[in-house]
Every structure is written in C-alpha cells, then in structure tokens.
C-alpha cells in the first residue's frame, strides 16, 4: 500500500546499506533526484542494477555508494564512456566495483521474469559471445520439445526499485507514458517500490483504456519531485538536456572536477531538479 512521503523520508526508510536496488528508466524518466538523495544520505555497499547505468550511476559509483553493478550497457549515450564507472573498475576508486555484465536482452528478460514471479528467464541469446564465459549467471536449459539449447539468466528481484513517472492520483495510482523501458517490470519485480512523480493530481488523465498504470497497491511510497528526472526527461513535461550529457564527459573525466561538481550541485544545495 502507498504512502505519500518526502524524498528524504522515503530514501531514509527504504534504502539500507548493502541492499540490492534498481533505479530504472531507459534514457527517459531516469530517477536522478532519488539517486542524488541516496548520495546525500551516504548509502554504501549497494548492489546497483540498471540496464544502462547512465550518469546517475556514474555519480553514485563515484561517490562511493556501490560495491557491485549488474548492467548491460555502461556508457554515456552518444558521448562516450562513464569515467567514474571506469575509474572504479580500472583503478578501484573510490572502491573496487564488482561487475555482473549481461546483454540488454538478458537483463530485460530477467526483469520480466522477476515481475512474473519466476526464478529465471529463458531466451535465445548470447550465441557465440564471450560473455557466457565471464558471467556464471548465464546458464542454459534444453527445450523439452525441440532439444534446442536456450540461454537462462536468474530473475532480477531487487530489494527496492525506484522509478520516476509523469503523475500519480490521490490514491497513489501511477501513470507512465512515452519510452516506458523496463520500469513496470522493475517495479513489479521488487520487494519495495518508490515512485517519484512530476505531479499529484485529482484525475490521472490516462489517454486510453490500455494506458500503463501501476495500481497504488503495488507501490510503497509516492513522492512528488517536479523535474525529478532532469537531466534525463519526462515526456510531456520537459526535454532531455543533451548539452548537459555532453558536458558531463569533461566534468567526470577526473576525480577533482567530479567531486567539485558533486559538492556544488548535489551535496551542498538542494538538487537542481528540486530547486527550480
């Protein structure tokens, strides 16, 4: 059942050191504000899951929140690599980071299996790829009808999933549209769910009978955070700050400029996404 909470209270209540958590959003609707609050509350030793770690996990890794990362593509989209992720993997700064690396198909199926209450997902994947050799969580089963070998990966079942969405109604039902990614699956796969939303409204204003809605009884905390996905975006509310994504490359390239930026924009102040 849902409670309406402040972001600070929701993160304090649902995020504990050492947990396995997923902040999902496939380019769109990335819950940046929630990630920043995790950094401010200095959560540590987290096992982070995300298909595309993006800037938000680069920041969390660089600030020492993570011990392990389960992912399928770890770059700055269209710009280059994630320097803080690389520094953690290549040089152990600020902590060594264990990687569990998958393909998108594998991780998308693993979230779907989690949502479906299954222990594993099967798919026709990883054929000929060296990823099979470096990830013990890629195994195989045989189809009992055709004999074909299929790849299997364990279901993703985070302790907590955090997503950002367009809006919630006053019961806590949440509406999401645009590039919906794996957010529904990530939410339904998790033990607990926090949803940050642009607004809380009387009428959810869904566009049709098949709109993507998470009922209030699938969510633990709804938090109103206008611009909570910035510099990612919220379809129908604001666009992606591609200029900032490009600028991040220089900011994150060395440790000093990174820390200075985090101090100024995340630690010291209320986050940009909430102050505007």
């Amino acid at each position, binding site marked *: 059942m849902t409670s309406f909470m402040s972001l600070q209270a929701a993160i304090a209540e649902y995020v504990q050191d050492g947990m396995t958590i997923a902040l999902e959003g*496939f*380019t*769109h609707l990335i819950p940046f504000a929630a990630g920043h609050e995790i950094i401010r509350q200095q959560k540590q030793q987290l096992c982070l899951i995300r*298909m595309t770690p993006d800037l938000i996990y680069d920041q969390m890794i660089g600030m020492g929140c993570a011990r392990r990362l389960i*992912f*399928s*593509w*770890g*770059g700055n*989209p*269209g*710009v280059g*690599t*994630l320097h803080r*992720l*690389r520094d953690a*993997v*290549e040089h152990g700064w600020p902590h060594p980071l264990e990687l569990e*690396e998958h*393909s*998108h*198909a594998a991780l*998308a*199926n693993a*979230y*779907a299996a989690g949502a479906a209450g299954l222990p594993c997902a099967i*798919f*026709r*994947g*990883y*054929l*000929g*790829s*060296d*990823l099979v050799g*470096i990830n013990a969580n890629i195994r195989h089963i045989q189809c009992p009808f055709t004999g*074909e*070998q299929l790849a299997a990966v364990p279901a993703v079942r985070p302790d907590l999933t955090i997503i950002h969405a367009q809006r919630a109604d006053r019961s806590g039902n949440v509406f999401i549209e*645009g*590039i*919906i*990614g*794996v957010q529904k*699956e990530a939410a339904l796969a998790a033990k607990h769910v926090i949803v940050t939303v642009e607004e809380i409204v009387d009428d959810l204003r869904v566009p049709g009978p098949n709109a993507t809605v998470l009922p209030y009884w699938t969510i633990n905390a709804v938090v109103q955070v206008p*611009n909570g996905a*910035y510099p990612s*975006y919220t*379809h129908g509310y*604001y*666009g*992606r*700050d*591609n*200029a*900032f*994504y*490009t600028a991040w490359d220089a900011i994150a390239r060395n440790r000093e400029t990174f820390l200075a930026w985090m101090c100024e924009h995340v630690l010291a102040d209320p986050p*940009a*996404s909430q102050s*505007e």
Partner: protein
Amino acid sequence: MEYSTSEMMAIAAARALSNEDVCFVGIGAPSEACSLARLTHAPDITLIYESGTIATRPAVLPLSIGDPELSETALTTVSVPEMFQYWLQGGRISIGFLGGAQLDRFGNINSSVIGSYERPKVRLPGGGGAPEIASQCGQTYIVMRQNRRTFVEQVDFITSFGYGRGGDHRQRLGITTLGPTLVVTDLCLLRPEPGTNELLVTSMHQNVTREDIMQNTGWPIRFAQTVEQTPAPTDTELEILRDLHARTKQAHAGKGLSDARAN
C-alpha cells in the same frame, strides 16, 4: 563538393538500405546512415531503436537511444522487454546496425574491454543490445572507422559473434541468420567471402589506395577479385547529411530545463 571521410562512410552505409528494410538502429554512425537513407532514397524505411520506438521518424539525430524525438515521432513505443522478445528475437528485424571498438577478419566485434576482462586496460561500455542483434537480425551491417586499433588480428573479447573462426561456424552454433554481410568504413566496403566468410575489400572509396587499406588493417587483408570504386557522394546526399547535422547541433545545444519548460 568536398567531403570528409566520415561523410563518405555515412553515405555509403545509407546507400545499402532500402525502403523495405526494418532496421534496428544504434546511436552514432548507424543512426546517421539510417536517417540519411530515410531522407533520401528510402522514405518508407522502418527504423526501430532498442528503447522501444517502432517506425520512428526523427527530424534530428538523437544523442541517445531514447531521445524524446524518437518516441514523439514513432508509430508506437513498446516496452524494452517486448522489444527484445517480440521484435528482435521474434525475427521481425531485417537489418541490424552494429559498431564496436574492435573488429576481426571474421566480423566478430568487441565492445566490452581492451585487455583482459578481469583487469581491463580500458573498460568499454559493453554489449547492450549487440550480442542478440548480431544473431537475431536477418543480417547485420557494421559501420566503423578503420585503423590498426579497430581492425585487429584478434579481438580481445567477442561481445557480438560474427562468423567466429569462419566457414560454417555460425551454423554450427545453431544461428540461422546471415550475420555481417557488409562492413562500411571510412576507407572501403568489405563483404564476407563465400565459403570462408573472411571479410574481403569489395569497394574502395574515392582516392583511397590498397596501400592505405593495408596500412590501416591489423591483419593481412585480402581484396576481392573485382574491387569496385565507391561512387563519390552526390551534392544532394551531402547537402541532406549536412542539414541533418546542422539541425542536430542546434537541437542538442542548450536544451536545459528552463528552455524546455518555456516550451
């Protein structure tokens, strides 16, 4: 008109596409080639991005795989699990576009690590959708700049399988799709040799010599019996490509929160 080798690469890749193709598009060079094809000779080409956008018609190049432009202009947008289950694995995609950090003579691609996996010299972004794009699309086109760092004797890690060690290696793994039937670089076009599936140079771009290609390849590269010359970009192709880049540059500059909210 004068043109750069990057422009030649994008235009050569675009020319390989047709109106009937259903393309799984990656960011960067693939996106450029696909958009250019749509804006020139293949207006009805179907472009699909792994973010779930089906039949998208962006006016500018997206920076990311999930820019607003993509879902705003798409026929429809599905979830990412559905994209990989029903559309890619379901065999609905005719052409997958791939790039990577390293390529070998059998079209195997590395986009994971330079050096060893456990102690990498460079940790690259990783495979993303590529391992399954490589095996599940009808065929794949690879677009990459060609030099001794990218065209290597042996890739450090096979992220996405091409022809493996050549010959029928693909079939022996139970893969039924064609694999990398075309590689487009800034110097030339390469296609797999029937039988061995080793990549051979089949067309050289204007003003490129065999010596240039050999010097920029990390293995003793072979040339097809008949090597064509890639036609130079036409003025129309160049103008449309440059317009696309100009629009893109403008769109990506200063799309801050305050800007967006003023809309």
